[in-house]
């Protein structure tokens, strides 16, 4: 019976990317949800996105009752996120009501109630047939109304009324010192409580979300990183993906026919991941470029994340070894995305990647080097992100190649990250530079390759005007 009740709880999609996964389908339909967090944590945006996506994606009109920002401020602020409040209002899908209480012009004498607020809200809901309501931030009433006894009982009545009205409501609340909200709103809203948090760790801002409480529903209990970008809020449920992706048996080239010969299947599996490690100057990027080029030659879209070189520099440098990236960029087969790793937090990089995956739909993704990302987070975060990243690529059946810079004499940090990546990668190739007879000798060793035999020999190569050239014959 307990179980049946759980399943019968109807959900309203939140409109926040990733949050429906954590909450098993969304917010409790027809009930109030409390979103709390300190100033600047994204409460208002959260609420606005809930309304706007409700309208655009689920055709559920919404009422925004703002106790702080004026209608024009809200409209202005969310324009940059592509939320067109004016248009939605004109279409009678959105109703914004700014409740402005000027304490200086108000006197209180005798008994009263907040029926005026109820009437306004009721009118707003009925005028557009709203299914969603936002009250942002109702706590502001406490600074405008002297009689807190009346206020508290009226707020309690309001939340009950919202339930009766059958609208799914978001109530925002400022984080208190010893309680979730300053005025203890959590006492009145007990169905679903979500806490947003904003902190700075090692100079990098990180936002987290946690479902504190969700009556009658299972939910993820972790703290989930979320981010705010030009598309609004996205939550990253790191642990939600499962190991159930398909594994194709098709073989593709590494971009170097001679290297393909070193694998028993004469190439690598499609949608597998390759890790290329090596010290500085061991031609990791060149190997990556060969792989990217082979993908373009198959007329498959390729996405190249460059964390060290600008697209221009990469194009110029690869041209010197006979790889004409310019041509494939123009034919839109290759897309180079360059950014400084430290410019954004890890989550932001992952989101950018996810978005580009959705936009460009590449069959091959290069991340050069993945070790740069590692410098911007702590180990457990990086590991979680890498897992998420690799899973995303696998699920989308994308060929992946990561390069990773290693240092002479393994440092401790180096090791753990290398462990993380190498255990996740399907194929691991290590590149080396050695000095022999006053000469630099480049070599390549396949450390592992899942699901196929491979050469155990160190293979020597040189860099020529046509790229990597193997000097010793490859054996299987």
């Amino acid at each position, binding site marked *: 019976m307990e179980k049946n009740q759980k399943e019968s709880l109807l959900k309203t999609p939140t409109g926040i990317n990733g949050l429906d996964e954590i909450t098993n389908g969304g917010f409790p339909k027809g009930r109030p949800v409390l979103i709390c967090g300190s100033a600047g944590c994204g409460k208002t945006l959260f609420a606005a996105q809930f309304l706007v996506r409700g309208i655009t994606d689920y055709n559920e009109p919404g009422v925004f009752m703002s106790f702080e920002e004026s209608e024009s401020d809200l409209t202005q602020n969310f324009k940059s996120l592509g939320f067109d409040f004016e248009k939605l209002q004109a279409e009678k899908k959105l109703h914004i009501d700014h409740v402005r209480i000027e304490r200086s012009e108000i006197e209180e*004498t005798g008994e009263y109630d*907040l029926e005026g607020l109820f*009437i306004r809200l009721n009118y707003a809901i009925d005028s557009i047939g709203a299914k969603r309501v936002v009250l942002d931030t109702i706590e502001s009433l406490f600074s405008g109304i002297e009689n807190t006894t009346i206020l508290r009982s009226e707020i309690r009545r309001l939340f009950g009324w919202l339930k009766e009205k059958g609208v799914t409501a978001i109530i925002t609340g400022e984080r208190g010192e010893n309680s979730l909200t300053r005025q203890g709103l959590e006492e009145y809203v007990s169905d679903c409580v979500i806490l947003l948090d904003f902190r700075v760790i090692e100079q990098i801002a990180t936002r987290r979300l946690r479902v504190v409480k969700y009556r009658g529903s299972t939910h993820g209990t972790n703290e989930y990183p979320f981010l705010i970008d030009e598309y609004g809020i996205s939550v990253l449920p790191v642990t939600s993906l499962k190991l159930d992706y398909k594994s194709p048996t098709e073989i593709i080239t590494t971009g170097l026919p001679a290297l393909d010969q070193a694998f028993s299947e004469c190439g690598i599996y499609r949608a597998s991941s390759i890790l290329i490690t090596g010290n500085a100057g061991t031609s990791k990027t060149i190997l990556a470029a060969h792989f990217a080029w082979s993908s373009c030659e198959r007329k498959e879209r390729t996405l190249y994340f460059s964390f060290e070189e600008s697209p221009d520099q990469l194009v110029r440098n690869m041209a010197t070894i006979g790889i004409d990236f310019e041509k494939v960029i123009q034919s839109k087969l290759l897309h180079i995305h360059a950014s400084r790793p430290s410019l954004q937090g890890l989550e932001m990089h992952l989101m950018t990647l996810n978005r580009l995956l959705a936009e460009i739909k590449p069959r091959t993704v290069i991340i050069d080097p993945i070790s740069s990302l590692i410098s911007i987070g702590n180990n457990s975060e990086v590991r979680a992100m890498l897992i998420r990243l690799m899973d995303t690529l696998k699920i989308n059946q994308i060929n992946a190649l990561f390069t990773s810079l290693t240092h002479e004499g393994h440092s401790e940090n180096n090791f753990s990250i290398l462990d993380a990546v190498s255990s996740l990668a399907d194929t691991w190739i290590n590149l080396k530079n050695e000095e022999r007879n006053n000469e630099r000798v480049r070599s390549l060793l396949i450390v592992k390759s899942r699901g196929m035999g491979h050469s155990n020999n160190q293979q020597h190569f040189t860099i020529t005007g046509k790229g990597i050239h193997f000097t010793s014959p490859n054996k299987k």
Partner: protein
Amino acid sequence: MPKQEIWELRLYIAGQTTNSILALENITKYCNQYLEGRYVIEVIDLLKNPQLAEGDQIFAIPTLVRKVPEPLRKIIGDLSNEEKVLVGLNIRPIAL
């Protein structure tokens, strides 16, 4: 002697509740006493005209709004405290 202004007051109610009836009684009494012949009270029932609540920023019921003379003033509650209402509206006894 300056031309005397007509006071424009608006009382927002939501149905004939005890508080609302009391508020109307009270304000009528004060006005007759201090502003005789110089006031207008408009009673707005939000149950009949809910769309009017937003314009005057009404959230509490009953609310008395002084539209004229400016600046706008609001008194919420049943107006039972005469002193507070007179101060709030800035009404001075006509005799003075």
